[in-house]
């Protein structure tokens, strides 16, 4: 775990309310694994006050990328940062995805909205030639990272709630269809998901109903991000667990929703 000041080399609007930031951080890149996150101090002052957690979206050549939606005060201030500015980062935090077991298996990644963020890094690291990413969005303009996933060697399927692109409906319904048609491969199928809470809950239900292994990356409001405040706990079968420390990635079978 490191605390560093990293220089921003680019911070630009990506699509709609989604922004893309690149920082120079070789030491962080070396230490980072897919599914881990950074706790970012956006301002030196008191506004915003707490750090903000963001997934590690991608790393390449000593540079680290963050993909973020502008949703409130903190992310708005983040989008105001210019290249050449510095970001105070703590990371890599949390324990990330377990993807060693995915080697050679049929892997399905399921992203809802900004949930694509940690999955790109994951899809690049997973050693399987049989990767499919389902990208869910409300509408066609909000589909994120299609090209990036294709470049990482994944097949891509898209779903939109309004039917403006790809499958019409929820990404979890698309997932159900795929599982139903691929019955044979079931035993070897691995699911990885990130997105809004209700979507992740549905992914867990689908995984359990079909006896598939699934890992989901959760979000919870954080005080410290380093395991000290007990602010970010979720219910699991083994008691309360901290999203920032034992998570943010959990197995479907251990969570209590």
């Amino acid at each position, binding site marked *: 775990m490191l605390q560093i000041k990293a220089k921003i080399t680019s911070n630009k609007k990506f699509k709609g309310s989604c922004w893309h930031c690149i920082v120079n951080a070789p030491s962080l890149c070396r230490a980072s694994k897919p599914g881990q996150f950074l706790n970012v101090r956006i301002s030196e002052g008191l506004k915003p*006050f*707490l750090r903000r957690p963001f997934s590690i979206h991608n790393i390449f050549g000593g540079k680290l990328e963050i993909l973020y939606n502008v949703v409130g005060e903190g992310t708005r201030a983040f989008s105001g940062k210019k290249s050449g500015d510095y970001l105070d980062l*703590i990371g890599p935090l949390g324990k990330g995805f377990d993807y060693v077991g995915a080697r050679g298996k049929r892997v399905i990644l399921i992203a809802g909205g900004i949930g694509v963020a940690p999955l790109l890094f994951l899809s690049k690291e997973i050693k399987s030639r049989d990767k499919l990413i389902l990208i869910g969005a409300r509408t066609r303009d909000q589909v994120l990272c299609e090209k990036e996933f294709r470049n990482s060697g994944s097949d891509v399927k898209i779903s939109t709630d309004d039917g403006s692109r790809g499958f019409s409906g929820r990404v979890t319904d698309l997932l159900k269809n795929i599982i139903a048609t691929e019955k044979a491969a079931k035993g070897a199928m691995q699911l990885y998901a990130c997105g809004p809470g209700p979507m992740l809950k549905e992914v867990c239900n689908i995984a359990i109903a079909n006896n598939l292994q699934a890992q989901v990356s959760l979000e*919870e409001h*954080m005080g410290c991000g*380093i395991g*000290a405040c007990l602010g*970010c706990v979720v219910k699991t079968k083994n008691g309360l667990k901290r999203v920032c420390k034992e998570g943010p990635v959990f197995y479907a079978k251990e969570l209590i929703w």
Partner: protein
Amino acid sequence: MRVNLAVKIGKLKLKNPVMVASGTFGYAEEFKGFINLKKLGAIVTKTITLNPRRGNPPARTCETPSGMLNSIGLENPGLEAFLKDKLPFLEKLGIPIIMSIASEDDSREFIELAKRLNKLKAVSALELNISCPNVMGQESLISQDCQATYSIVKSIRRITAKTLITKLSPNVTCISDLAKAAEDAGSDCLALINTLSGMSINTERQSPRLAAVVGGLSGPAIRPVALKMVWEAYNKIKIPIIGMGGIIDTPSALEFFIAGASAISIGTANFINPRVSVEIISGLGKYLKRKKIKDIHSLTGSLIYES
């Protein structure tokens, strides 16, 4: 010029007056990658109860202007698990470990805790948390009642020779009355302040941002309140005060000494800058040198004003 940062609190000798506040530093292990823990004046543990506590449901934290609300609800593993899993790491640091303790619904638990901890050399002092606003269903705090404060401190004083720190709540009408009650009952020191109770609302959903609805406010937002309480208590009592509430840097730490604190504790700021405690230790030394003050003692209560 050499300056002295060492202070004495009850029987406890601290090499510097900077400690970390209960509940904001975990059990210290979480911070070992950021700072040399041995540099701290003391570590106050997350409050421990006799039996494990699950705490409150999430969401347990939310940001507020210049601060945050928390409703952790004293989640902790209970005494036995603490002694087995957490204390050994703390003990090895070789710096004073102040154990924060609380009782749930029966104050006899306090006595039981104090008795069990009495024998442990690794525990340098006890901090009585009679001021946690986050226990659901609880109607009032011990530290909101002078008589109740007096009697709990007195009954623990009787059974322990360890340095006793009483942590008071700011959610009271007159802090100096409670400070006096704790002093009269034999407390060696006061810790001021715990969080202020508060709430925050999501207007779109018309719902509270904390699942527990109300929680405790901390951070710079509460600093003026905390300072005034330290100053009021300082003027009424003789025992030392550990000041806290919104300290984020050296100037804000200095304010507390000048108002009357003998030592300070850093809480929420640890979340934003995990290195803040050691930065403040060196900042205090520099300030004393620059102001040609030999001993941090002389800063305590050094407020200059016309009355």
